């Protein structure tokens, strides 16, 4: 892959539909060239239970405007280059997210399945640890900051 990867990154203060974003992304790609031979997607959604087992009302996602977009861009670019993939689509919610709503969409298109899968997987891990987002669980009217991530 000699051309630089095309990256599309967006933050969403309102709910987004992962499959609609994917459809728009594929449509835009198709206008330029045949769709890639391999596409790997990951959708993360809010669990209905908090870490302590109680019912979750909502997950609040705080972020660092400006820095979060830049970090996501840098992480996507770095991993896209390392794996030689052609396109990356990344969407992340911010604000108050309700159970079963999507928090994150990671999509990678490449000429081979290995790079597409590995890049999508590594990008997901990278953004969980290397981009300034913070989760607070709301349960029974009480907010609790989540420090660290769920086990892989």
């Amino acid at each position: 892959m000699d051309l630089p990867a095309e990256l599309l990154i967006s933050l969403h203060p309102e709910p987004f539909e992962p499959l609609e974003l994917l459809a728009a992304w594929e449509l835009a790609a198709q206008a330029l060239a045949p769709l890639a031979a391999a596409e790997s997607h990951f959708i993360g959604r809010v669990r209905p239970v908090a870490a302590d087992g109680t019912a979750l009302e909502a997950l609040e996602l705080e972020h660092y405007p400006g820095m979060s977009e830049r970090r996501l861009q840098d992480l996507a670019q770095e991993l896209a280059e390392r794996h030689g993939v052609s396109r990356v689509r990344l969407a992340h919610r911010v604000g108050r997210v309700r159970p079963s709503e999507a928090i994150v969409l990671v999509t990678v298109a490449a000429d081979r399945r290995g790079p597409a899968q590995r890049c999508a997987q590594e990008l997901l891990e990278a953004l969980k640890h290397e981009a300034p987002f913070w989760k607070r669980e709301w349960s029974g009217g009480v907010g609790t900051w989540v420090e660290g991530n769920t086990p892989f």
Partner: protein
Amino acid sequence: MPAPEATPTITVRLFARLREQAGWGERTVPLGEGVVSAAEIWERLGLGPIPLPAPLRIAINQQFAVADAQLRAGDELAFLPPISGG
């Protein structure tokens, strides 16, 4: 009337749990004399003792930085609690 001499300042930002504990999210802080590090600002603002707790991270002008990074007038310094994105 001559303009007052500009005092060199930085902007300090706190997020998530840190912001709530401190009771503020953004402040303009005079830089003072001599070289000043991120860790010194942390201590000076009464955010906690130094060295900073290991899980905290620092950003200067929206890039990750180390605790003893030197600050310059106009910098944006942020203290970041442990990240939990995705």
